């Protein structure tokens, strides 16, 4: 088994004292930032990106592994104790977790979430080890037309599957694509949307865009509608589980990953759909149906394991195809690009040492999370009391540090502010942020694949549909686009029959 020897080498790299220290720092920072209310995993990763700038790539990605899993872990604490999920993947956890905490079973809810996270992450990361090299090998054979089709699919699904309004999703995507156009055209050196500015001809750094849309936009929007009376978190002791709780939780822990992983790997909104599916499944299978809605532990255990495994699935697509399926993965992809590393089928060949060290660190991060965070839970709970003025002032502060650190240029701070204002307007008028971020990051890559495909076919459009794979993907795209029309027709017919 080639991948297991590579994985053992990866552990060899990741377990050196320095790298282990990076992993611990990553886990602690990720959890701290993730626990803070109002900060989801994507914003946490974007804000923490600059601290890795000074490190070598291996150290940086080991730290990133910790930040990635840590920030998601932190999110579940927030939703259980404060009933205010920082991101979509913890919405479901709050539905049972918060009632549990209110009934004085917060410790058990936290423990069920933490162990669920651990189990889900372990199974998910194992699946990643098994599947990623296979996917990468298959993907090496696919050409520019296929890649273009897959990226188009990502654009369409991120705007159509998620969110409530398609036209607003597309508006957001197009804003992102337009920002992605700024700079020198990679193939011809033609200036696009630079207006003669030397700074703009380098393009706008993806990290600046992500930090601006997530962090600055969010802070400005919160400022406009700040809740004056801060929600009180529920005090909690050390997490523990009784025997009865374990008996009720272990099956949901094991079922969750198999719902989460596949959904994480496809561009369908990350953990939102699978955690909900897990919730529904556990509810149906539960023997204590009357407890649901009042704090059923299965409703915490299952969705948390699912969310954690879906994060591993997301990493699988990100590493092997260069395809980010969630906002957090989009920021991770930007992090790779910072180091001049392009995730994709060739990554496992070209950067084998780095990738396996990263994957090994995912396992290490999961163990560290479990060992550190069970005893530290009361400390994390204290973070929920942070005064909101300090919290959002801090977000703006670190967003500025991050954007400035990208290239040490004040112009980046101005760009950060302008795009932050766009982020504010988008939140005000219900334009989802994720499509814009995906557009900025994937747009240039998609254009390159498109032009490469058309170069091969000498400008003929048939060059885009010359493989079974690309045709399949286009059919899928059409199906997604046509779905609301089909549904509307069905509903119309139903309403004609009905009263």
């Amino acid at each position: 088994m080639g991948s297991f020897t590579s994985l053992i080498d990866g552990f060899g790299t990741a377990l050196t004292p320095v790298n282990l220290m990076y992993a611990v720092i990553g886990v602690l920072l990720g959890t701290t930032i993730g626990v803070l209310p109002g900060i989801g995993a994507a914003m946490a990763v974007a804000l923490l990106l600059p601290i890795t700038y000074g490190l070598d790539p291996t150290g940086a990605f080991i730290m990133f592994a910790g930040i990635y899993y840590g920030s998601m872990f932190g999110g579940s604490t927030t939703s259980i104790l404060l009933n205010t999920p920082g991101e979509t993947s913890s919405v479901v956890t709050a539905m049972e977790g918060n009632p549990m905490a209110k009934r004085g079973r917060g410790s058990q809810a936290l423990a069920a979430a933490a162990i669920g996270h651990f189990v889900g992450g372990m199974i998910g990361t194992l699946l990643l080890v098994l599947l990623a090299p296979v996917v990468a090998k298959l993907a090496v054979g696919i050409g520019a037309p296929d890649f273009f089709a897959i990226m188009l699919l990502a654009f369409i699904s991120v705007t159509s599957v998620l969110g409530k309004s398609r036209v607003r999703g597309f508006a957001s995507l197009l804003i992102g694509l337009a920002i992605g156009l700024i700079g020198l055209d990679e193939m011809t050196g033609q200036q696009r949307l630079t207006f003669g500015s030397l700074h703009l001809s380098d393009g706008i750094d993806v990290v600046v865009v992500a930090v601006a849309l997530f962090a600055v936009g969010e802070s400005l929007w919160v400022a406009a509608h700040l809740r004056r009376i801060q929600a009180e978190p529920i005090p909690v002791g050390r997490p523990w589980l009784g025997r009865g709780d374990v008996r009720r939780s272990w099956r949901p822990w094991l079922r969750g990953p198999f719902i989460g992983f596949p959904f994480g790997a496809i561009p369908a909104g990350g953990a939102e759909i699978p955690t909900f599916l897990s919730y529904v499944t556990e509810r149906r299978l539960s023997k204590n149906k009357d407890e649901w809605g009042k704090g059923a532990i299965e409703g915490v255990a299952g969705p948390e394991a699912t969310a954690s495994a879906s994060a591993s699935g997301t990493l699988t697509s990100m590493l092997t195809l260069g395809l980010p399926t969630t906002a957090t993965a989009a920021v991770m992809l930007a992090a790779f690009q910072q180091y001049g590393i392009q995730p994709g089928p060739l990554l496992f060949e070209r950067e084998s040492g780095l990738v396996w060290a990263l994957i090994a660190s995912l396992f290490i991060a999961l163990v560290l999370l479990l060992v550190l965070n069970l005893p530290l839970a009361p400390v994390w709970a204290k973070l929920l009391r942070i005064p909101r003025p300090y919290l959002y002032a801090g977000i703006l502060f670190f967003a500025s540090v991050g954007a400035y650190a990208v290239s040490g240029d004040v112009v980046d701070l101005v760009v950060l502010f302008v795009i932050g204002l766009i982020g504010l307007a988008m939140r005000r008028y219900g334009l989802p942020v994720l499509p814009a971020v995906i557009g900025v990051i994937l747009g240039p890559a998609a254009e390159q694949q498109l032009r490469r495909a058309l170069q091969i076919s000498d400008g003929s459009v048939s060059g885009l549909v010359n493989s079974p794979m690309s045709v399949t993907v286009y059919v899928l795209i059409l199906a997604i686009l046509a779905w609301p029309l089909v549904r509307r027709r069905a509903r119309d017919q139903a309403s004609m029959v009905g009263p």
Partner: protein
Amino acid sequence: MSGQGSTVERQPWYKEYSELGVSVVLAALGVLVLVDAISMPAIPAQRGIGPDVVPIVVGGALILVAALLARDVLRGGKGEAEGGEDIDLSAPGDWRTVLLLAAAFLANVVLIGPLGFPISGAVLFWGAAYALGSRDFVRDPLVAAGLSLVTYFVFNDLLGVSLPGGPLMGVL
């Protein structure tokens, strides 16, 4: 940003339809992208497509989406403002706080060059905390100065990410 402010029971038409402003901005952006693409010098015969094709598609699509959004708004569609843990949508938008926050942010942009990060960062933090309603005139500046100095040293000396020290660091 147009048409925010107090929620009167019956809103004037320009507040009711302020979302049309989004359409206008999108359309303007589309025109900008299109004009930029069309004014590119013709690249000598090249296989495949030139650098202007994708911008033309994006610009055109922006205009199309702007029109579709306008239609949706006029038919009564509304973008749902984003909720969140610390967001109270029932209160009217407090745009004064936003302006103060923006001022704190821009103060950092202006001051980071001449005064260095330790000072400009502290101004940013204190200003932002003040804007958001914190009024502890002892604790706020202390937290701001502490955070700014620690961040400076951690980034500059431990992480190898250089930030401008300014005159203050020259003295220390």
